[in-house]
């Protein structure tokens, strides 16, 4: 049985890992390489790593860092941040990354998705959509860490990305980010309705129950979380954590004898 994926999402800012709330007030949570090592030990399904400085500062991806991450990682790794060309994507794949996440670059040039997919295969091209609720209903796509409103309807874009050859959509709710109050279930439902691509949802997880709620409703889906896997307790002490295989099997409703 193909299982849903539970994915820690790590944000890289100013040479360290941070966690934000509504894409703001980054709080330092640790060293990236160390975090990858701990997640290896915890046998994580997949890891997502976003350099949230690269695009905003107009920088190239930090290849030396990406190489170190890829070398350490014993699980599939998705990298996002500052990727604008197929040459950059190719170089990052060469360093041992399985998936590349694109965001702001596709707003300027949606063909980039197709170009990169032709090189590395659709399965490795991920489109990340950072979305925010509009005051009078509906959702709007944002880039540059939630600072730039684009006027684009993320649902329309998600459907278009499938046509262009994307292999997965990550939908990230700016409103829920860091809130730990649960996922925006209606947003997930809407995106799931417009694409048959693998979907990963991010933003709002505060407990394993929140994750279970998504899986119960959507079956095989990627469920990503930031705060949940780096904080512990009501005072948000930094402590990397992740469900055990037994806890995951319970969430996935897989018989423990089976796995």
């Amino acid at each position, binding site marked *: *049985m*193909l*299982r*849903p*994926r539970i994915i820690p999402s790590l944000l890289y800012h100013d040479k360290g890992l941070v966690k934000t709330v509504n894409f703001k007030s980054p709080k330092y949570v640790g060293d990236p390489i160390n975090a990858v090592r701990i997640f*290896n030990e915890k*046998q994580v*399904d*997949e890891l997502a790593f976003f350099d949230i400085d690269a695009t905003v500062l107009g920088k190239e991806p930090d290849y030396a860092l990406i*190489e170190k991450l*890829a*070398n*350490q*990682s*014993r*699980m*599939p*790794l998705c990298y996002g941040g500052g990727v604008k060309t197929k040459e950059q994507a190719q170089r990052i*794949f*060469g*360093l*041992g990354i*399985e*998936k590349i996440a694109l965001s702001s670059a596709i707003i300027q040039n949606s063909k980039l998705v197709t170009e990169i*997919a*032709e*090189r*590395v*295969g*659709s*399965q*490795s091209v991920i489109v990340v959509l950072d979305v925010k609720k509009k005051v009078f209903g509906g959702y709007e796509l944002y880039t540059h860490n939630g600072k730039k409103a684009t006027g684009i309807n993320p649902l329309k874009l998600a459907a278009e990305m499938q046509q262009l050859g994307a*292999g*997965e959509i990550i939908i990230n709710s700016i409103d829920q980010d860091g809130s730990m109050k649960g996922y925006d279930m209606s947003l997930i439902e809407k995106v*799931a309705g417009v694409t*048959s*691509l*693998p*979907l990963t949802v991010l933003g709002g997880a505060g407990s394993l129950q929140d994750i279970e709620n998504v899986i119960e409703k*959507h*079956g*095989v*889906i*990627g469920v990503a979380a930031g705060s949940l896997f780096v904080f512990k307790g009501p005072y948000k002490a930094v402590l990397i954590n992740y469900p055990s295989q037994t806890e995951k099997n319970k969430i996935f409703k897989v018989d423990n004898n*089976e*796995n």
Partner: protein
Amino acid sequence: MITLIDYGVGNIFAFQNVYKRLDIPTKIAKTSSDLEGAEKLILPGVGAFDYAMQQLNASGMRDKLDELVLDKKIPVIGICVGMQMMGNKSEEGREEGLKWMDAEIKRFDESLINQRTKLPHMGWNDVVPVRNHPLFSRLEHNAIFYFLHSYFFKCNDHSNTIAVSDYGLQFTSAANVDNIYGIQFHPEKSHQYGEILLDNFAKI
């Protein structure tokens, strides 16, 4: 000594790291002379079939690889697209495969996949050996591996299949003919299961 074929496609370092932990020496081959004296080969691969074939053909290693695999019969394992390249042809592209195993590479039939998400087949799935095989020693029960692909390896001779997985249909997730092995999943990204499998390959 395991030789990792580096033709610019695929994840060489991840394999190196697994073998480092297992204390098994590796070597990277970028040219035909690097392949000289190789005892065991890994052909990794990610991405599009045609691009991978073109890169391998342009690497200057093709003839030497054919000689090592087909004449000298040293063990070789293809991973993901690396496995698919060992077949005859792929529906994904126009390039010819290596034809080391008699297989066609087919696209999954989306109409058989009974869930919202269709392709790619992405994530952790069961890999079930169909018979006792040294590659799956200690992995006979309950092994799960990470998959990321939209095309699968269809053996023309069913007896070449050594493990199967299920995605809409039952497909070959591992195959073997003589000294030639192929696996569709990514052992280098499959935690302890992958480590055991790569250890098994090293001991074959």
